[in-house]
């Protein structure tokens, strides 16, 4: 029944692009974070060598500072650091609301239309996940273009392959988040529940990751959370590709994300068969 899977996915995508104004709004939050952290609080400009010293000493001190900063952030440009971190956060924000359409379909009776048909319950679930992945990727393209316009510093040697792999990685993250959030919404009938949950989780998930600050500098409890946070692992991958311009994607991060994808798939398929009625 792949026809049904695509038809259901297409419906989600169609409804999404017909709400053009809503799409504009989805960019506001990540842009705010970019502007606030990346441009206004330019953290790293605090670390300047004092300029009342002899020039060669200023240069040496600045080099030392820069090398320390680079070790922690991977770049001396904080905007680039935050922007690359914001990509995954943006995917999270998009995916968090992916269960909403299911709640509305349940309330408006549309879901019953699907449930009385022979279509597999897993198909209904997967169509939502697939639609979120497609949506996230299209929206990410928008954010990526904005980040370039705002002056993101891609590392030397970043080519089409790096960008393609970044897309793959973000699609994987969208898949993980949307599977989890849609699974959580399978039995929910109130859209307020979804909104409250998203509001409860989004900021903590963002701050308890290396999106705006490296985890090395965090208190140990937060560091533990950040290390378990899939956002951190995705950021590792994105920054390896886009800041270092390297294809040596950290194996642990990739394995962690793939493992999560596997677990969330198994969980989502099981729960949709059980609770989608």
């Amino acid at each position: 029944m792949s026809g049904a899977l695509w038809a259901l996915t297409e419906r989600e995508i169609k409804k999404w692009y017909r709400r053009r104004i809503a799409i504009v709004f989805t960019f506001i939050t990540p842009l705010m974070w970019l502007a606030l952290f990346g441009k206004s609080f330019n953290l790293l400009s605090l670390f300047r060598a004092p300029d009342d010293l002899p020039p060669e000493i200023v240069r040496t001190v600045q080099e030392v500072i820069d090398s320390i900063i680079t070790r922690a952030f991977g770049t001396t440009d904080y905007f680039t650091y935050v922007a690359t971190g914001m990509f995954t956060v943006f995917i999270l924000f998009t995916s968090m609301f992916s269960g909403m359409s299911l709640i509305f379909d349940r309330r408006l009776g549309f879901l019953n239309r699907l449930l009385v048909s022979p279509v597999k319950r897993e198909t209904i679930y997967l169509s939502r996940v697939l639609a979120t992945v497609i949506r996230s990727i299209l929206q990410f393209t928008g954010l990526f273009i904005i980040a370039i316009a705002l002056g993101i510093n891609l590392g030397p040697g970043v080519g089409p392959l790096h960008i393609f792999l970044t897309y793959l990685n973000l699609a994987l993250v969208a898949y993980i988040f949307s599977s989890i959030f849609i699974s959580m919404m399978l039995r929910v009938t109130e859209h307020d529940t979804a909104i409250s949950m998203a509001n409860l989780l989004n900021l903590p998930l963002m701050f308890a990751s290396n999106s705006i600050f490296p985890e090395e500098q965090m208190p140990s409890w937060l560091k533990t959370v950040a290390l378990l946070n899939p956002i951190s692992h995705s950021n590792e991958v994105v920054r390896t590709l886009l800041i270092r311009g390297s294809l040596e994607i950290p194996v642990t991060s990739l394995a962690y994300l793939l493992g999560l994808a596997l677990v969330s798939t198994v969980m989502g398929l099981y729960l949709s068969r059980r609770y989608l009625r």
Partner: protein
Amino acid sequence: MEKAIVVKNLRKVYEGEVVAVDDVSFEVERGEIFGFLGPNGAGKTTTINILTTLVPPTSGEAYVGDHKVGEEDEEIRRIIGLVPQELTADDELTGWENIYLQGSLYGMSRSEIRSEARELLQMVGLEEAADRLVRTYSGGMRRRLELVMGLIHKPEILFLDEPTLGLDVQTRAHLWDHIRRVRSEYDMTIFMTTHYMDEADKLCDRIAIIDHGRIKAIGTPDELKRMVEGDLVIVRTVDGPPIDVRLDGVPGLKDYTIDGTEIRIRVEEGERATPAIIESLVSRGYQIRSVELVRPSLEQVFLTLTGRSIREEEALDTISYRVMMRRRRG
């Protein structure tokens, strides 16, 4: 495969207290239009939801097209169509988009859907509007679209839950025509619910009267009416009060009253009694001005069986409530 639907001692209790369906048993023959007639909250939708595999019954058994509900749900889903009480087409999509989506749920290809839908859309007069967003449809148009969507895969058994709820009289009559044509052209079994007396009367081959989750009576509309009072034959004669009316030979005679030149005769079956009544009056030399056969209405039947009538406002309340819900979400 004999019966389209067999239901035995079906019961549904919601959340441990609300008894929505209470020990209901009935059978639906292949090819008939079988109707559940009852007021709001009688358990009509709950019964449909059980038969269409949406809601599990608390106890009892149900078979749809020989498949047991709860055990062979996938087989049932393949052969049924549902036109739900609520308007559930996606109003952010066009008519065609809704139809394509619906057909694809049943594994139909785009071209199959297209050719099938064209005929249906033509039948219900919706071809023109099919490319518009459903949001711009009137209530009647939406009902007709729902009907097309329920029929797109040519189900063996079609469930219609209050198919004309909230429509004006004229639109309802049109929809009845469509439903009759669907039945004869597609040769399907239709299980429908309604709280409109005239709808059940005009459309259904057999009716079950349901109230508070219990079936009060099952039969053809005529059988049901006969259960209560029998037919009334009203004869008006040209001259004088008929003094010595003798109607002994009339089959199924119950009683009669005389009022001026008018004789009101209660009989079991009007068709059988009328010729005998006329003959007996004519043979006595009375000139007959008119003969009228009045059948008791389902309204009376319902009143007698349940002790109350189905009030219109009840139904209207749910509609305005739904509209409100939609607005709030809109």
